[in-house]
């Protein structure tokens, strides 16, 4: 009887626990669950059609921190039949700026087909929003796809919000002061009239 818990535990482990936990690959990145929103799923996934091709891109890690290298896998396959595009795919990464030109921080980098995928490994130094430009040509026709992404948490809204709050507070104090002055002036005028 004393051994019952140990037997039950052993049975539970044999029956209840999964057999072999192993990562399989979905679109080129390790994937540990069938749940599509499982945390390891790359956050960056894009799909777009370009002429006779479908372009899919996955980014890993999904949340990129500044100073880190990312891996982007680009799949370009024919819409009819799914055969992979076997030409050259180019990636250029622009750091988005509010004013002026967006500087190129990666590329233009060319990649050839490597087991059905075109691989790129840009490094993102700054916390900012970026534009990934993927380019390829088929039968003399050029195609460009722009994909937006962010690294880290570019900019903080708190300094702006704090400035707005302080400005609003000052504004309301000034309005209040002027209203008090207006009221006193009106009261004084009333007294003058009644006197």
């Amino acid at each position, binding site marked *: 009887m004393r051994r019952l818990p140990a037997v039950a535990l052993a049975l539970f482990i044999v029956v209840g626990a999964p057999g072999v936990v192993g990562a399989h690959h979905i679109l080129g990145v390790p994937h540990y669950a069938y749940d599509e929103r499982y945390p390891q799923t790359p956050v960056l996934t894009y799909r777009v*059609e370009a002429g006779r091709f479908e372009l899919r891109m996955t980014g890993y890690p999904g949340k990129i921190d500044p100073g880190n290298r990312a891996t982007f896998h680009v799949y370009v396959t024919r819409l009819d039949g799914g055969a992979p595009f076997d030409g050259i795919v180019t990636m250029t990464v622009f750091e988005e700026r509010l004013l002026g030109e967006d500087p190129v921080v990666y590329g233009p980098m060319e990649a050839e087909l490597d087991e059905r995928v075109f691989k790129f490994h840009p490094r993102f130094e700054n916390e900012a929003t970026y534009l990934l430009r993927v380019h390829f040509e088929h039968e003399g*026709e050029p195609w460009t*796809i722009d994909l937006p992404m962010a690294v880290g948490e570019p900019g903080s809204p708190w300094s*702006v919000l704090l400035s707005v709050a302080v400005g609003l507070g000052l504004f309301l104090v000034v*309005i209040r002061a002027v209203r008090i002055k207006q009221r006193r002036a009106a009261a004084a005028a009333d007294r003058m009239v009644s006197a």
Partner: protein
Amino acid sequence: MTRARDLAGLAFPWVVFVVVTAAIAVDLLLGGGTAGEMHAHHAGHGADGGASLTGLPAPLYYGSVALILLLSFGVLEWRSERRSASREKEARVDLLSWAPLRKLVAHPVTRFVGQAIVVGLFFLTLAAGLFGTQVSTRNIAPLLTWTIWWCGLIVIVLFAGKAWCFVCPWDAVAGWAEGKRPLGGRGANRSLGLRWPRALRNIWPATILFIGLTWLELGLGVTMSPRATAYLGTGMLGFAFASAFVFDRKSFCRYGCLVGRISGLYALFSPVEVRVKDRDACRGCKTQSCYRGNDLGDGCPTFEYPATLAQNTYCISCMECVRTCEAENVTLNLRPWGADLAEHRKPRSDEAYLALILLSLTGFHGLTMTSAWGDVVDGVKAAAGLGETFAFSLGMLAILLGPVVLYAALVGVARWAGGKSAASYREHFLRYAYALLPIALFYHLAHNSEHLLSEGGRLLSLLSDPFGWEWDLFGTAGASAGSGVSLGTLWGIQVALIVIGHVYSLWASRRAAEQLYAARTDARRSQLPMLVAMILFSTMSLWLLRQPMEMRLSWM
């Protein structure tokens, strides 16, 4: 016959509404979807969008141009009797003659509920923009602001006039902060109540804000930045707030709000109006509560006296006058499209210039989303050695002024062709400018329908994950970004809108010519150069729709 025409005029907007809605619904039921027909854009054009949407096919484009030409000369030949203002007034349906609807519309809770919902959405947008992911495709702020609201606003004007102002969140928050009671009646007034500066008592402040917003939107790509979108929303709230605490009534709504003034000018066309039922009854009114206010509500916030109100431009449909009028003499009417353009009594230069700027900037908006614009900017950069932002600004200025200069020249020809009019060049310029509003409005709608119907589908997934934080609030986060109607239906809607706008512009220019000239033959001769202008502008609209349109948002 006249009665039948009145009924047709009243029914037409709603026939268009039903047909377009049914076409979209059927298309969606049959599977629709432009997603499969969106294409990556061709190389060499540095737009921010993720992909482009195929433009009108050649047969439809050339067929539409031919139809525009046929209709133009057909309308010129069409002889209609001149209608007096009193005849125009007959084509109205008093919606508030049904007592329950009057109670509902006039009750302050109705407005409060609408405002509360929109204020909630506004703060959701601000929060998502400020604190959510800055990947524009994963954040609800850009979609809700630029695709749903900014594009939907013009649709609202077309069918419900100034309904947006009724629920405007900036006005609501500023008003509540200033002391206005959310549930009606006059609250504490915390404003200084100063008069708006005399020099700025026109809509130039709103026009300049509109040009500035367009520059920010297209030149700096604010539509692709959640945080910049939130800052813009906060900025508008700041304007409304400052104005509420400093100036009398809702001076900002009247003079400064770009949304209110654009929708106000477009609302000259809209099929609803707030008007008095019987002007004679107002003559004997001692209280003038609609203007001064009473315990039931405020006087007109935009300084209009409803007894003499003849146009929608400055009415914000707040329903205060419906609430305060003791005699229940103010009502909400249904009317034909373009009613205010038919008998436009007091043309103003600030309004006329806004109409022309709307024509320029709506076209410019479309142009910047075509690959041709990328070539123009690249050309300017190379020729003048300028940076991206300066080249864009220069191009924008040229396109802003181009149609105005062309119009000014054609007005000169129209005056010369008309011959015997006592009206000055200025009056010709002002009156004909209003006639271009339908072309601007309907191109704006055709362009916006592209955004709404092809990008709006993303709302389903973003509602479940508004901040891009991998939430799934309603179980729709993984919903496909399936994009509305098929291209065929979209093209049909767009062409129909351009043609409708063109015909209404021709009709409005005819009315303008009749106001400028006593003799019908002189009016027709004067109208010919305007006809050329309208054909040019409508053909330009169709050409823009023919171009592959680079959409704002990429998709997953």
